[in-house]
Every structure is written in structure tokens, then in C-alpha cells.
């Protein structure tokens, strides 16, 4: 089975500040209190649920012993020296000149491979039942490269005198 992955740019959790001037103070405290109350209720109710999900996971698909190969490229072609690592371990390899790799350890469904290279966005690929070949295209940030210097030189006014 062949799987194609393209990494999309990550959204972080930062929320945009909004203009809050037009709300009255009374409104503010009332709403906030009710919101806090809802949040507390939610917290109280949801916690026990989590505590019960400790049942052992089924091991039906675990021992599949997959030999995983793959090729990593960017928009222009194959990428050498991309690190391929089994998440949570130090086991891994890197791609050769043709962008190819063969993972040194057999993998099980559910394992996650982390692909990383300085110039590209990192990507995670989850191994599913029957995965043997991974074809991955890495993308890079389109960030503007800028930089100014800090010379710590004492300021001197430009004078006409």
C-alpha cells in the first residue's frame, strides 16, 4: 500500500486579541461567573470519564512486523540526509542520496515515524496495517529571511555644528 503525505502548516493555539471596550463591567462579571461555573461543572463531570478508560487496549493488530521503506522529496526532487526516527525512541536512520530509506527495525501498526531536516517542516507518519512504502513530500516555511545587527555602539546625534 502506498501512502502520500504532505505536511500542512501548523496552526498554533494563540487566539487573536479582540477589542473589548464596548462591554460593560456588569456584563463582564456576570458572564464570566457563569462561564467559570460551566467550566467547573464540565471539569468535574469529564474527569471520572477519563479515569475509566484504562482498560487494556486490544492487541489484535500489533505483531505485524512490517519492513518499512520509503522515499522523501521536496517540490524539486529527492532529499538526502532527512532523519527518520521512531517516535519516543532513539531508533532511526536517514535518507540516502536518492532520498530513500529502509527503516532498521520492523514496525507495528500504530508506530509513528518522525521525519526531520533543518530546512523543512517536520512530519509525522503513522504506520497503519499493511504500510510498507512511504512516499513523503516535505514542505518548508515561506518565511522572509531578515536580520539587523546589534553593535551596541553608543548613540551619537547627527549635528550640523
Amino acid at each position, binding site marked *: 500500500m502506498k501512502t502520500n503525505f504532505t505536511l500542512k502548516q*501548523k496552526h*498554533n*493555539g*494563540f*487566539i*487573536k*486579541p*479582540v477589542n*473589548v471596550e464596548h*462591554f460593560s463591567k456588569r456584563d*463582564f462579571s456576570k*458572564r*464570566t461567573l*457563569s*462561564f467559570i461555573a460551566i467550566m467547573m461543572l464540565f471539569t468535574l463531570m469529564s474527569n471520572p470519564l477519563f479515569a475509566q478508560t484504562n482498560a487494556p487496549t486490544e492487541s489484535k493488530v500489533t505483531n505485524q512486523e512490517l519492513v518499512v521503506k520509503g522515499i522523501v522529496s521536496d517540490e524539486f526532487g529527492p532529499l538526502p*540526509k532527512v*532523519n527518520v*526516527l521512531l517516535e519516543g525512541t*532513539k531508533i*532511526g536512520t*536517514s535518507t540516502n542520496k536518492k532520498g530513500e530509506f529502509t527503516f532498521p527495525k520492523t514496525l507495528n501498526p500504530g508506530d509513528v515515524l*518522525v521525519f*526531520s*531536516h*533543518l*530546512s523543512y517542516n*517536520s512530519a509525522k507518519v503513522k504506520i497503519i496495517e499493511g504500510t510498507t512504502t512511504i512516499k513523503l513530500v516535505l514542505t*518548508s*516555511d*515561506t*518565511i*522572509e*529571511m*531578515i*536580520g*539587523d*545587527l*546589534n*553593535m*551596541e*555602539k*553608543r*548613540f*551619537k*546625534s547627527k*549635528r550640523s*555644528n
Partner: protein
Amino acid sequence: MKVFRFLLLFIIAFQSNAQISDFNNIDFKKADSIALECKDEGLYNLPELVHKLTLNLDTDVERFRAIYMWVCINIENDYTLFLKNNKRRQKYQNDSTKLTNWNIHIRRKIFKTLLKDKKTICTGYAYLVKKLSNLANINCEIIQGYGRTSSTNIDKLNAPNHSWNAVELNGKWYLCDPTWASGIINPETYAFKFEYNDGYFLTSPKLFAVNHFPENEKWLLLNNPNLTFKTFLEAPIIYGKAYNALAIHDTPKKLHNALRPNEKVTFKYQLIKPITTNQVHLIVDNGFVDRKVEPNAVQIKDDTLTFEHQFSSTGFYDVHLLIDDNLISSYTFKVKR
């Protein structure tokens, strides 16, 4: 929906105080020594580097510290690359196609230089801090914006010229500047010298805003409508050592000031650590000679430092604040009858 806006206000209000003092209970010695032990590591295997830097550390702030410190003490500022990039960016500033193409080209070149020589420019520092932090599952962003130093030509500050980082620790966002923390460029030889400045790590957003203005203003991490790009351009010059001495720069609010002979001008600052009155000096430069003077009415109450100065004769003066003989900030005063 409204409820979320209120929650947002809380988050923002919370963030304005996000700074290093939130972590007074944490000793960064362990993180710093791990960063030092990894000094010879390269950038070819980033997950392994992150693993080595963070494995034996228990909190996110320590893990981030080790990553940040590693970048600051290992990556050099590349003056040649800066010059090359700056020239082209100026040249193409009104031609977006050429600028985009140049950026693609220089990005490849910058990554290559960073990988091979561990040298870069601002965005490279911020990029690397973000990249390594993300591999350690720490939320970190590159902030593009305007940086102001004594050598910045304010008249030409029409496009972002500096990059730094915001990092999320325990649900709060903090600011840091790995480029300026790593060292300084010699003004005569343009050679880079490593000289780590701890003041740029999780800095008070109020001080940071004196010489950092983000393209997207939410990254000021301040909710102050009086702070605009215009006030930023008018602000006094502060130096690296200000980041070791001050939490807030209060007055004078502007670099250029005008007053009459014998009119009092009040200087006010919030200090990070206590000092004594005899550590405070001014250098007054009238264009011909420098005079080191004791300021008048120096007061240090709690963390607040205040003092006064007045000019007896007309003229144009550059005035520099020194604490412990370290250059903190600069102002000009036009004294006219």
C-alpha cells in the same frame, strides 16, 4: 461567543506579566550545563540534539532554556550574509516578484550556511529555536518585526528588519531574542563575538517593546493602546545592558526632547535588582566634550529609580544613562530659550 471574548481578556491580561520572574523558583544551572556539554553537536540530526538537550530535564521551561542556550552559545551572527541579504532586499523592495525569488534563493543559502558553519542571521536564530522547541513538543513561534538599536536608521525602517521568538510555557506566552542574546558585532571590524546576555530570555514585555515592535501587534503581549509604531519610532535608544538592569523604562518617553534652560527633566525606571545611588551616572555630550555627571535627587524606592537633571545653558546634548558604568539608554535634549 461573548463568553469567549471575556476569557480572552483574561488570557491577555495574564500575559502582560509573563516574564522570567514567573520562574524564580527554578534554577537554570542544570539546563545551562547540559547546553554547554552539547557544544560540539551539529545540526544534521535535530531529534538527537533535542533528545540530548532535554532528556534529563523535568519542566518545559528548563527544556526550552537548554535549547535556547544551546542556540545562543553555538550559532554565530554572519555579517557577510547579513550584508548580502540587506543589499538585495533594499534593491528589490519595490519589486515583489524579485524579492520573492531572492528570498527563496537566500533561504536555501542561509539554511546551508547554518547547517555547515553554524552561522546565520536573525531569522535563522529564531527559526532554529522554534524548530528545536517544536521537536521537544514546546509551542514556539518566530516573530517578525522591527528592531531598533543605536545603529538603526529609523528613516529607512520601512520593512521588518529583525526576528525573535515567542514561546508558550505553562499556558502563557513569553518573549526572547536569541540573536541579540548570543553576542555582538564589533563596530570597527564587524567580527562577531559570543557574549551571552541573559536579559533577553523571557524578558518583561514592557521593556522588550522599547526596541522590538512585531509586525503583528498581538505579539507585543501587551494590551496598551498608547503603544503604537509611531511611539516605538520615537522611543529612546536602549542597549543590551538595559536588559540586565531594567524591568520597565518609564521616562523620558522619547529619544528627542526639547526644554528650556534650568527646566527639570525627570528620569524614571523600574529595576530588576537593587542598586545603590552611587552606581547611577549620566554622560552629557554637548557635541564637543563628554562630561560624566552625578544626577540630582537620585532616589531608589522599592524597585523604582528616579532622578533629575537640568541644563544651565542652551545647546544640543546627547545624554546617556550609565548604571555601574554600563551603557543603559540614550536621549537627546535641545535646550532653547
